[in-house]
């Protein structure tokens, strides 16, 4: 298979493909964007999407969740195209894109109640459950306009996992969280992954990615440089940071850059 060829996924042929990006291209007028992204994520993976600011992480995630349309290519979630069959593709997906959003004039509970209406299996008990899981149960009747950034992030996470999704897409989930918050969220991610939830996470916090993710994809200048499992990376490099720097540096020496 063409797209998997440069990045062999050892032993993943039999596994269920959760995300399938094919030739995904979106170029903005300022020259930024993503170019010809091919990427597969398999069930149970905690995929870390790494890249510097402006590399195209959020663009890719926005296309994955249908917020913007690509110029070319497609993304399939659970085998359904987000362009053609949006409702089916998103049925088992929860996400935070850029910053978690909430209606400021509704309470935290009412915000989740709004989302719950889209899923027949999500009842009030489940809303209480996710509020407790993310540690904001005490604040459920308060309006998010009085929330700190960390609390908003927790509410966003509660919203993302509310429907017991099989895939969770998180763009910078640790933004604004204190150390305790980061540990809590990491634990939550790992425990959900154990139950079979697939994660696609972008983050700047490379140390945390190292502790959380089991597969890494590096995006730079709108192009995917490499995909490797965390175990393989740590066999050859002392830390994920070393690997990231070495990948980006070796790319910098390559002639085939998007802007050339």
């Amino acid at each position, binding site marked *: 298979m063409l797209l998997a060829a440069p990045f062999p996924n050892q032993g993943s042929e039999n596994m269920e493909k959760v995300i399938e990006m094919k030739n995904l291209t979106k170029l903005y007028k300022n020259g930024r964007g993503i170019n010809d992204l091919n990427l597969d994520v398999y069930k149970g993976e905690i995929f870390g999407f790494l890249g510097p600011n402006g590399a195209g992480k959020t663009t890719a995630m*926005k296309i994955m*969740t*249908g*917020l*913007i*349309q690509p110029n070319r290519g497609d993304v399939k979630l659970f085998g359904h195209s987000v362009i053609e069959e*949006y*409702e*089916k*593709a*998103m*049925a088992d*997906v929860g*996400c935070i*894109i*850029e*910053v978690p*959003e*909430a*209606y*400021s*004039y*509704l309470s935290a509970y*009412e*915000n989740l109640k*709004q*989302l719950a*209406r*889209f*899923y*027949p299996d999500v009842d009030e008990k489940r809303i209480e459950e996710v509020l407790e899981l993310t540690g904001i149960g005490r604040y459920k009747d308060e309006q998010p306009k009085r929330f700190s950034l960390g609390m908003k992030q927790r509410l966003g996470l509660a*919203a993302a996992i509310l429907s017991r999704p099989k895939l969770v897409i998180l763009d910078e989930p640790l933004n604004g969280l204190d150390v305790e918050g980061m540990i809590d969220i990491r634990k939550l991610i790992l425990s959900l992954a154990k139950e079979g939830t697939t994660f696609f996470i972008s983050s700047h916090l490379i140390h945390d990615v190292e502790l959380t993710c089991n597969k890494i994809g590096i995006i730079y200048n709108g192009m995917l440089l490499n995909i490797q499992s965390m175990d393989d990376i740590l066999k050859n490099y002392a830390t994920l940071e070393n690997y990231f720097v070495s990948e980006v540096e070796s790319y910098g020496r390559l002639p085939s850059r998007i802007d050339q």
Partner: protein
Amino acid sequence: MAVFQAALINELEKLYKKRKVMVAMILSILLIVIGQLLILGVRTGLGIRGAGSAEFPLLVLSVAVNTILPLFTALVAIDSFSGEFSQNTMRITLTRPVSRFKVFTAKVVAIGLFILAILAFLFVFSLLAGLIFNVKSTTLIGIFKTILAYGVSFFPMLVFALGVILLANILKSGISVFFLSVLFFILFKAVELLFVSYSGIILTSYFDWYNLWLANSFPFLKIFRELLMMLGYGIMFFTGAYYLFDKKEF
């Protein structure tokens, strides 16, 4: 259908929680009270009859369709679209398993229900006010005609709302949508007065089309023509606005 229903309930809940509905209702009551006081003043001071109980609701309607009704329709429509675009809260709904067409339609239906609610509210309270101050002139036919007048006023207001929604999907800022809506409104009213022969194609001229329904010799053809015109505007606005909404990047 269940997904659409969820989206509609969500829109209605947001509308209700934002208290715009409350303000619109308070203003409606003010309009009725002030109107009734004016009529009382005219009657007792000048000895003129003013308006009877069945006519009073129509008087209120004639003022409302040119003032608070389009004003609040525009405000609610702008809030539902431009407001959510600028606060990025549109993403909350759009990243759920619901198609953009359903989200768009749910918003339009919610705004339609808002217009209906305000019309019903105005009707009930103006009728009550009319009854309290002038019981004698109340007839069943009068009440039926009033219901008809309020009912048909829904259509031009919905088309107006769709026009505002189209603007909200073209322009970035909610404030510019609001001012442009007001500007168009005034401009249309002026054109209506200055070029009477062309007033038939101007959207705002349909705001008082309920008068046609009350005429003694029922002007079927004229009503039919205006209905088709409104339908035409409505379809164009809806399609244009949905096209832009569907292509929008969030």
